[in-house]
């Protein structure tokens, strides 16, 4: 079995591998984190510890999920807030975990409701032995508007609280961003100005997953009512990658160290987050669905990817895709690449024809006798929707045509 070094340094702390539990129900107590460490997670972001005065009172039930066809958990909705254990219990757990797992990284997630509580919490988790602090500025389902994502959309408040945390602790600190905002950059910059060393992104997206059609209530139903709350899982991955990319492409943030979060389930998802600039990766939803054991394939798959990429250190992969994601106005618009049909692989379902007609440019010609597609070059604009709907991947990028009046060498175009 392959064995490669997956270690990476993030905010000065060495992680044995980039995979961490995110601050959530999956890192709620000593026993859970212990098991996660034992299974091989590189780090744990312990479930957010709040101020003593803030009473956590959860609803029941508290989750919902979005399905598509026979795939459950396309997306997941969570109404749980922050750690419900007492401050003393949480600190005791942190202490115990650090003692027993000194080589794996322990990150304390904290959330205050004013400068003083932020500072106090930072001091307490530092004393308890945490290696790093994550500021939760982004939980979308808090019952207080002085906490969570309402704070995370306000750059000034974020900066002030970052400063407070830095007064309470000298540990490396990352600020966790909310995606419930048009542009994350001003908030990230404010946090860095306030002293944050890095950024964690993204927290969950405010959502309504489903409505009960008979009762006319959002799900989950809590005594006849429901609320908007955070959405996570595979469905949010594209949103997370976009926010991380946008931060990395801002020149003020281009070197910022990021912990990537949002729908990571497989090593491929993990590699994508690394390629857009994440150094560590945090996971919750996939663990809630499948358990801590998923880290085995995350790690092994990532090792094989490194091998294929001839990479010895994970760090070499960080941010490699950033430069290849550019503003739309800068893309080469001088050519068309038309589909090529592999008729041996074709199963003759005609889905390409349907989608091209109803969602494209009526450019596929259907041979009714042989049940085979071909392309009408005059009509095809090279959108390649057909390739996406083909169930057997029998449609690939074919001939390149340069648009009239444009000067390009088709051989030099990278498909």
């Amino acid at each position: 079995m392959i064995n490669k070094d997956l270690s990476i340094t993030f905010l000065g702390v060495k992680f044995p591998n980039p995979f961490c539990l995110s601050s959530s129900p999956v890192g709620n107590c000593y026993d859970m984190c212990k098991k996660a460490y034992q299974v091989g997670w590189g780090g744990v972001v312990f479930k957010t510890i709040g101020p003593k005065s803030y009473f956590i009172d959860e609803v029941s039930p508290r989750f919902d999920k979005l399905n598509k066809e026979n795939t459950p958990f396309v997306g997941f909705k969570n109404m749980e807030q922050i750690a419900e254990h007492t401050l003393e219990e949480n600190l005791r757990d942190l202490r115990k975990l650090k003692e027993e797992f000194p080589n794996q990284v322990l990150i304390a997630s904290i959330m205050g409701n004013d400068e003083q509580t932020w500072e106090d919490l930072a001091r307490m988790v530092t004393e308890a032995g945490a290696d790093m602090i994550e500021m939760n500025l982004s939980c979308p389902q808090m019952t207080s508007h002085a906490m969570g994502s309402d704070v995370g959309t306000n750059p000034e408040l974020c900066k002030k609280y970052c400063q407070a945390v830095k007064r309470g602790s000298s540990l490396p600190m990352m600020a966790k961003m909310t995606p419930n905002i048009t542009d994350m950059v001003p908030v990230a910059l404010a946090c860095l100005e306030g002293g944050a060393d890095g950024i964690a992104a993204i927290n969950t997206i405010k959502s309504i997953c489903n409505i009960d059609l008979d009762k006319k209530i959002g799900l989950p139903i809590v005594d006849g009512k429901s609320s908007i709350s955070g959405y996570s899982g595979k469905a949010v991955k594209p949103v997370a990658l976009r926010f991380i990319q946008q931060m990395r492409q801002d020149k003020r943030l281009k070197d910022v160290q990021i912990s990537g979060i949002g729908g990571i389930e497989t090593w491929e998802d993990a590699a994508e987050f690394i390629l857009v600039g994440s150094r560590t990766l945090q996971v919750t939803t996939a663990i809630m669905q499948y358990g801590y054991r998923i880290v085995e394939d995350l790690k092994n798959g990532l090792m094989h990817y490194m091998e294929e990429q001839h990479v010895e250190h994970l760090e070499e992969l960080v941010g490699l895709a950033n430069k290849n994601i550019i503003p739309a106005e800068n893309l080469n618009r001088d050519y068309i690449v038309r589909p090529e049909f592999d008729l041996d692989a074709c199963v003759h379902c005609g889905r390409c024809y349907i989608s091209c007609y109803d969602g494209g440019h009526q450019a596929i010609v259907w041979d009714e006798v042989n049940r085979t597609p071909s392309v009408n070059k005059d009509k095809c604009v090279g959108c390649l929707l057909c390739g996406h709907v083909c169930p057997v991947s029998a449609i690939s990028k074919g001939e390149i045509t340069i648009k009239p009046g444009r000067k390009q060498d088709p051989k030099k175009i990278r498909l």
Partner: protein
Amino acid sequence: MDKKYLEEIEPGFSPLTIVEEASRCLLCLDAPCSKACPAGTNPDRFIRSVRFRNFKGAAEIVRENNALGAICARVCPTEKYCQKGCSRSGIDRPIDIGRIQRYITDFEENTKMKILASGKRNGKSVGIVGSGPAGLEAAYMLNKLGYDVTIYDKEKVAGGMLNFIPEYRLPNRVVVNEIKRLKDLGIKFELGVSVGVDLPLNELKSRHNAVILGVGYSYGKMLPAFEGNRNVILAVDLLKKIKARKGNVKLPENILVIGGGDVAMDVNTSLKLLDVNHVTDVVYEKFSEFKASKKELEGAQALGVTIIDGYVPEKVKGKTVTFKHREIDATIKVKADKIILAVGQRPDVTGLGVELVKGEVNEGTPYVTKDPKVFVAGDIANSKYDKTVVGSVRTGKEVALKVDEAIRSGRAK
């Protein structure tokens, strides 16, 4: 008695597996499944409804296209029809269309949907002889077209050949429910009346504007060598008896079956499910030319039926039958407690005024007879469709249109 015979041998889909199966469907442009369904049940359309979670819409599509949708879902040899050209076969295996249809019709039944509706009455009436699949489908179609329909059957229970199909494949309740839907539309049933014997055809003709003869191949064929042998039972008689008595039939330990069609497989499997120890089936056809559906053949074999292909019965003496191989020099002798002959069926058209050529009324045009008021459907119709339930359903649809046309044009009065 073991309950195996009374339970459907193939499990139905669950709410989870129906979605999985429907998701496998490629939702083709020119779906081969729908083109291949003799009954026109339109599988590509109802699978798409399931895929988009419209189960009620799916039930409407099945039911409006096929009044025997729940029956066909269970007994149709889908491998020969809808599933044969399934595009998904290009990836792995065809969509299990029969089972999807079964889920939909079970849903329809469980949610007590009322889908079928009568057409506006036109004051005309049609009498149908035979309450098998052809007669039932014709009745539904004619009712929808506005006719008052009465179905006559010599048996006391409606359903014709459907009552021969074993319980594990087609539960009686499904047939009863299907017929009840038709009764609810106002279609009348006169049972225990043998038209042509108890009730002259002329009487029927005077009662109705047109008459459809939908008599099936409900009698088993006898082979001359077995005539008069007390140990011989005809397959259809046995199947009917087992089904009517819900499996409570005394059977010996060792039974010989002769025949290789679907009826023979029904006998084989029924006997095994009723715990007959030795079931030996000797078949004229070789496996490569078998008539029975592959699924039924494999089902019988899986239950431990000994099937010997390529042999012809040569000599019968009491309980012992000697067979010779069709091509090579080989002889086998089987001694059994009972001998079941499953070598084909025949109709009985006594008193119905039609002449049969090779078991069919052949006037050049399908469904018509020499009498402009009398039509034929089902097994005895000279149609291009197989003598299966689904084939009969199709003839029922077509004869209904033929009758409507004849009455409206005044050819039948």
